[in-house]
Every structure is written in C-alpha cells, then in structure tokens.
C-alpha cells in the first residue's frame, strides 16, 4: 500500500485528537484525545519505518533499516502511560477538591 494512505489516516486521527483536546471540557476525555494523537504518531512512525526498511531492502537485501522508529514507538507508549498516570492522579486530587472533572470549573485562574 502506498505510504500516502497511512499519512492520511494518521493525519485524520491526529486532527480528531487535536479537535477533541480543544473542544472537550472533560479532563478524562481530553486525556483520551491526547492518547489518540500519540497513537496517530505511533502509526505514522511504524508506517515510515516499514517504508524505509523496504527501500533499503530493495537496494541491499541484507540491509537493516527503520529499527529506531520502532524503538521510538515503544518509548512513546511508555511515556504516554507515565503521562496519563500522573494526569489521572492529578485528576483524582482535583476531584477531591472540587468534585468535578469538568475543566470549565478551573476558570478561577483566568485573566
């Protein structure tokens, strides 16, 4: 399959994630949208990795290419988990204080 399809899919997923972060007011859903953005990135990285590996193999059958992108995906997954767990812990703290996860209640700090 040509790489452009993967790019379109990843851009679409990423845009949905961005739109969700910008429009939703619920903290948990915002984190879900951030995950969507990161997964779009993972998809794109794996697709590009495959593309570069194929290109390299076409020139030299013994070549190894595109490994670093797959490693990158592992790191993104772990970091995303860390980010979400810190975020969820903060959401729980916030819930104890203001009994809601709606970020509009956070407007007190505006201006």
């Amino acid at each position, binding site marked *: 399959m040509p790489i452009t399809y993967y790019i379109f899919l990843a851009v679409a997923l990423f845009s949905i994630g961005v739109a969700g972060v910008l429009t939703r007011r619920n903290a948990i859903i915002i984190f879900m949208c951030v995950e969507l*953005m990161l997964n779009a990135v993972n998809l794109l990285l794996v697709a*590009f990795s495959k593309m570069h590996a194929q290109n390299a193999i076409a020139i030299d059958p013994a070549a190894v290419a595109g490994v670093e992108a797959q490693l*990158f995906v592992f790191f993104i997954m772990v970091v995303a988990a860390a980010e979400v767990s810190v975020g969820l812990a903060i959401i729980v703290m916030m819930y104890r204080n203001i009994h809601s996860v709606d970020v509009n209640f956070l407007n007190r700090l505006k201006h």
Partner: protein
Amino acid sequence: MSIFFLLLQQELLLTAIIFVLLFVKLSTKQWNSQTVLSFVNILLVVNLAAGFFFKEKGTLFGDMFQTNDLLRFEKNILNLGTLLISLQAYNWLLKHKHAIEFYLLMLSTLLGMFFMLSSSNLLMFYVGLELASIPLAALANFDLDKKRSSEAAMKYIMSSAFASGLLLFGISLIYGMVGSVNFTDIAVAASENPLFLFGFILLIAGFGFKISAVPFHLWTADVYEGAPVAVTSYLSVISKGSMLFVMTSVLSTVFANLLFQWYNIVAVLAVLSMIVGNLFAIRQQNIKRFLAFSSISQVGFILIGMSGANIESHSSVVYFVLVYLFSNLAAFAVINVISEASGKENIDDYKGLYKTNPALTWVLAIALFSLAGIPPTAGFFGKFFLLLGGASKGNYLLIIVAALNMVISLYYYLRIIKAMFMDANETPVEKLAISWSPKISMAVCMAGIVVTGIISGAYEYIYSLLK
C-alpha cells in the same frame, strides 16, 4: 570504560543523589527533616562543584549522547539554579511532609534536562524532554491541600501532553522524510520538502509551548500563579532555560539549512512574545502572574538573540539565561520569603515594603532593575548582547520593536519599585527575620547580577566555549 563515567559524570552524580535520597526515604529510621534538608543541600553543593572539574568531551551510546565544554557549562548553570531554588525552598520544605519527594521529583526533572541538553538524537531528546516535564506536573501540585495548586498541575500536565503530541507528530514526519532520527542525518537531509517543513513547524510549536512563547503561552500565568513559589521559580528559570539552550543549538546546528524559514518564525514569535507579555504584565495584580508575563516578554528578547544564528548570538543567549537566572531567582527569593511569612502575593501588599524591610526591598529592586535592563546591572549587558546578536541579520525593524518594548517594560518594573519605596500602606508586611538559607541564595544572586555584568569575562568565556 572509565571514559564512560567521565563523560556521564554530571548525569551519574545526579542519579546517585536521587538514589541516595530514595534510600533515605525507604529506610525505617525517621529522619529529622532539618538534617535531611541540610544533607540534600550539601549534596547539591557537591554536585555543582564536581561539574567544574571534568573537561572530557565525546559521544556515547552509539552517537545518542554527546557532551562538550558548552554543554557542561550549561549543565553547571542549571545545577547552580537548582541549588539556589533549594536554598530558597528550605523554610517551606521544613514544614512540608514530603520534603524528600520534592527533591526526588525536582532532581529527576533536572536529570531529564541534562539528557535533553546532551541529546544528539530525537529519541534521546524526546525521552529527556518528557522526564523533564512529567514530574514537574506533580511538583506543581505540591501544595497538596490547596485547590489552586492542583488546578495548576492539571493545566500543566494537559498543555504539556498536548505540546508533546504536536512535537511527536513533527518528529514522526521528519523521520519519515529523512529515514533517521540522528541530528547529523537530519542536518544533512533538511530540505524544503513540504512534509519536512510541516514537521519542522510542529517541532517549533512543541518548543514554543515549553519556553512559553506567544501564542503558546496560555498555560503560563495560571500555572505560575497556582504552583508553590519554589516550583514557579523552577519552572520559570531552570525548565525554561534548559529548553532555550536546546532550542538555540538545535535550530542553529540541525536546521541550519532551513535558516531562512525558521528566521521568520522565530522573529514573529519574538515580536508577539514581547508585545503580549508586556501588555499583560502591566495590568497584573498578583506578583507571580506579573513575573509570569515578564518572563514571557524576556523570552521574546531571547528569541531575538536566537534569530541571529551565529556564534555571537548563541553565546548571547547562554549569557542572558545566566543573567536571567540570577535576576529572576533574586526576585523569587524575596517573593518566597514574603509569601512564606505572610501569605501575601499581591503587588499592593508590597507597598511601603521599604519602611519595614529595607534589605528585601533593595534585593527585589536590583533584581527588577536587572530584568528591566538598566545599565549597571547584568541585565543591561545581557539584553545588549542579545540585540547585537539579532542585529547581525540586518533586520533593524526587529531591534526597534525590541527597544520600544524595553521602554514599556521599564514602566511596569518601575511601578513595583515605586510601590515599594514611595507608596504608603496602612498594613505593610511586618518586619521579617530572614533565615540563613534564603540569605545565602539572595547574596549569591546579587553577586551574580553585579559580577556577570561588570566583569566582561563571563560573556567572553561562553564565547570561547563555542568556538
């Protein structure tokens, strides 16, 4: 093998300190918090001093990690700042249940910044960046019983997660066009390919969030106001400073081929940051919010220096971050003392401060003079070199805008100085007894402001490191 330890000296020492603190926390003995805090501060002094003794340079981990004289110097600057913040936070942490956790989180972020600075690979850069930003959210939440503290943490973690999402999408596009995440390969392959440019712009957006340049600044004021004072100063000096170091070197080395493209982006960010930061700083009532917007406008000036993209402008950015560290930390030291003793954080509360606390007033006044860039202080020379670096491109319009903004900023910095020295106040902050640790911190900051300004060696030393 020994070269491994020599190259990684700063990172390994910091890791060792983190583990020692973890062992202290895990031990069954209940340590006296005063002992623990003095112990930590001694460790930080050792950490700072040890950084000056090693000169080895080279790369490690298959070209993922690099170190050289400039990077060592930048890490020493960050070590110094962390030590100063730790001294300022002493009294606050003495009363806090989780003092050791504060250091665990803060030193972890510092470690992340070190790896980010030393990265010569986008993967190492990303991991360092995240290590530097995730624990900061937990730090912002460190006033556990205060509502606004957890609000600040919430805003920080959300905007930082969003920013790293943008940055990662940029990285993945750059990887797709180049086929490698190594900085050297990217520098060779950097081209005007549309997808590459798109990725590059997203990367700059990610940078912009971390240094809180306008229009990516929206989280800054809220987080600065809500977080504890020590964390605010850490965010505004160490976190921002490390990101500025990285951004300067990445833009001028990795993306040197795209100079024409990023020059315009950086110039627009600089002008917007200066104008918006200044205009919002004028109408602030809370002094932490005020310093947040003042730091946004300082970032605008630094971006002007960055846009020069030569050795002079690079060293001017490093020099200004050093000066900014001293000036901003001096201001935060005073705010920390007053906020700790009386809980007052509004500019109106600072009226008539000179009558009760002349020493604190002078420290804050000199710090604000330095931030405003008034001649005998280091801030003037810092801004002068920045503008000189930016002027090397011949874009004098940018320099004129910057000069106008310096005048505006003078107005609001002097407003606070006038409030402290001249305005009358019926309920001024009472006379405060300042303990030794903030005193040392303030003395170092004052010495730094005077010495780095008067002795021209500082700038020339940084310049010699870059050559």
